[in-house]
């Protein structure tokens, strides 16, 4: 009996409080949060000399790279959303967000969710100025989504689908749903020497070095900067 009375009283109190507040007006409190949360994150890269030692770019190239980087990302770091946005501007017809995500993972070597200028420049140095083995290593690292040293069929399928996604729907010939899968099967046939269902770095390097086209295409973008 006392239980029920207590609960009733509590409810009555709540109603009374509500009515009181309604009469006196809670409109006084402005529930607008002050949006003064400045993003004061500002990241500065290491010195130019250190970067010169770590990468294979010349001083001039580093300057040009940093100027472009700083212009677009004044805070000094790129987060994944901005990365995806920038990358999507180059592929307006398709959906490049998945591939951009994989790229982001590949560049973000420190795994902290942002790509700083050092990460950026280190990655670019390998891609543009590294030896063919280093480049192939980087590509392998890109494909190996969980970074365990093996490329499984699922990982490859993910990568392949993301590349095909970038094409969009309006293609010639029409994009079939199993086009990535076919491509992955071809890839595995070529790369997987011991047919164990995964591609290791050694198999990858070996197969790529045998393929003329791939070797040539590795040098395609060398003078991009």
């Amino acid at each position: 009996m006392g239980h029920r009375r207590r609960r009733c009283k509590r409810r009555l109190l709540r109603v009374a409080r509500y009515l009181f507040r309604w009469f006196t007006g809670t409109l006084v409190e402005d529930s607008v949060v002050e949006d003064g949360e400045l993003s004061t994150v500002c990241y500065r890269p290491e010195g130019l000399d250190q970067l010169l030692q770590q990468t294979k770019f010349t001083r001039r190239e580093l300057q040009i790279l940093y100027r472009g980087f700083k212009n677009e990302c004044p805070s000094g770091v790129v987060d994944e959303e901005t990365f995806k946005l920038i990358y999507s501007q180059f592929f307006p017809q398709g959906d490049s967000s998945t591939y951009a995500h994989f790229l982001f993972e590949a560049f973000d070597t420190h795994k902290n969710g942002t790509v700083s200028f050092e990460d950026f420049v280190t990655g670019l140095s390998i891609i543009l100025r590294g030896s063919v083995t280093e480049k192939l290593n980087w590509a392998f690292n890109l494909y190996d989504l969980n970074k365990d040293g093996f490329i499984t069929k699922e990982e490859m399928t993910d990568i392949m689908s993301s590349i095909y996604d970038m094409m969009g729907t309006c293609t010639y010939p029409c994009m079939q749903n199993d086009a990535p899968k076919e491509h992955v099967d071809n890839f595995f046939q070529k790369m997987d020497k011991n047919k164990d269902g995964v591609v290791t770095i050694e198999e990858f390097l070996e197969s790529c070095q045998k393929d003329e086209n791939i070797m040539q295409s590795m040098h395609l973008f060398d003078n991009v900067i």
Partner: protein
Amino acid sequence: MATGVAAWLPFARAAAIGWMPVASAPMPTPPPDNRRKQDGLILLNVSGQKFQTWRNTLERYPDTLLGSTEREFFFHEETNEYFFDRDPDIFRHILNFYRTGKLHYPRQECISAYDEELAFFGIIPEIIGDCCYEEYKDRRRENQERIQDDEDSENQNDMVPPDMTFRETMWRAFENPHTSTMALVFYYVTGFFIAVSVMANVVETVPCGTLPNRVKQVSCGERYALAFFCLDTACVMIFTVEYLLRLMAAPSRWNFIKSVMSVIDVVAIMPYYIGLVMTDNEDVSGAFVTLRVFRVFRIFKFSRHSAGLRILGYTLKSCASELGFLLFSLTMAIIIFATVMFYAEKGSSASKFTSIPAAFWYTIVTMTTLGYGDMVPKTIVGKIVGSVCSLSGVLVIALPVPVIVSNFSRIYHQSQRADKRRAQKASKAAGQALVCKANPMFDTHHNHLLHCLEKTTNHEFVDEQTFETSLLEVSMAKHPHLSPSLSSGSSSQGLSCCSRRNKRKSFNVPNSNMTGGHRNSIQELSTIHIRERPITNSRSSLNAKFEETVPLNCKQPYITAAVITLPMPPVTTPEDDGSASSPDYSQANIVRVSAL
């Protein structure tokens, strides 16, 4: 694309290395990179204030003064700088445009000075960023209106051109009474008679004492019927003459008849004539009395004389939806309270609330806080309801009014702005398209990148229309007897700018140079290929001829600004041997027109 994005193109291209190992086809050769020249600083001296920027920054917009060779005309050898004798404050904004790609309008600058500077430096105002565009357009419009007003008032003060016809003179006199003395006299006389007529209508209903052989009071109108009739006749004659003169002088009679003022005029004078025509029949005299009510419309004739009245009328017209909402909410409240009141007062004896519509009157009087007191609730419940009614009446009436007022001004400006923006959007898009010709080098590299992606996936980019037609053709291919007519039928349609891949395949057969490898080298992404007349005699087939003469009647949605890139002279590097596309580049003579 934004200039900032162009800075990321090298990165995007480098990232394409991720596609290389999975690609099964060889990649196309990259376009030669001939921007190896050193990027240097340029010194710009604008009236003594020095600005410096990279040369590449200025060359982002090659069709402005600073980005093209036109700036060489301003090069000053003695000081090895570019000297401009212009306003440095405004120049700051112009230079920022090169740096950031966005043009801003500084609010404190004079609009004409700003426009002059933009025109001097070859920058189209339409590319002003969204943040400043409205302000810019508003200021510009004000300026135009000011100039227009000045011109108009000048025109008015000018001597009348002597070769105006009498009709035009009359119309001008009617519309602008200040132009001549006669017009002014006419204006005041008509105003006086409108006032007289309205006063007469009012006075003739005043009780004027009794007639000698009657008991009850008669109105002045009945007592001095003849006098009032003469007065009415005089006024109506003047109004008729005025209306006919206006009708005669109007440049467009039909437009004049349709206008509001002329309708008011007609309504004001018709009752008199109808009264003349009708006999003193008892049946129609009732209707005749009703018609006399319309004489009060003569007061609206004053709106020709008063600009304020016109503005009020326009205000009400544009505020109609707000007023409608007020009316609707009031009606809702009235119905609710009248119903409650009726049922509350149903019990009491001799209640005046005989029905719900009868209670409407009480509710309206209470809600507008008039409180005549002719209907009063007697029960307690009724009184409680009545008090709630009057309290809520204050709220319901007082609240929307300021909201309506502020809404009105806000919506009025907003709708003007929305209309303006819609009109501006078209011109803005056109202007932006003209200006945003990014450097062609960017487009070449971008196209090459997309081409690599095509090669990787063994698919090609096509535009939507071609994609849909190819789908159509796939379905049509199942009915082979229809396909020839389709191909001829569709090819006889006006082709849009975007090329038709499928047709090209059949055309390739006579042109023996282009084989299967050819189709891989043509990119589809928003480019069309206008093939020049091949030097070989390819006129053998009708198809090829048709292709050469394909008309560029682009339908509206496909018109974009374009960058025309001619093929580079073939660069024979060792890598060319591997790719099958390079011979096609040199042999194809394809002029690529890339849309932006």
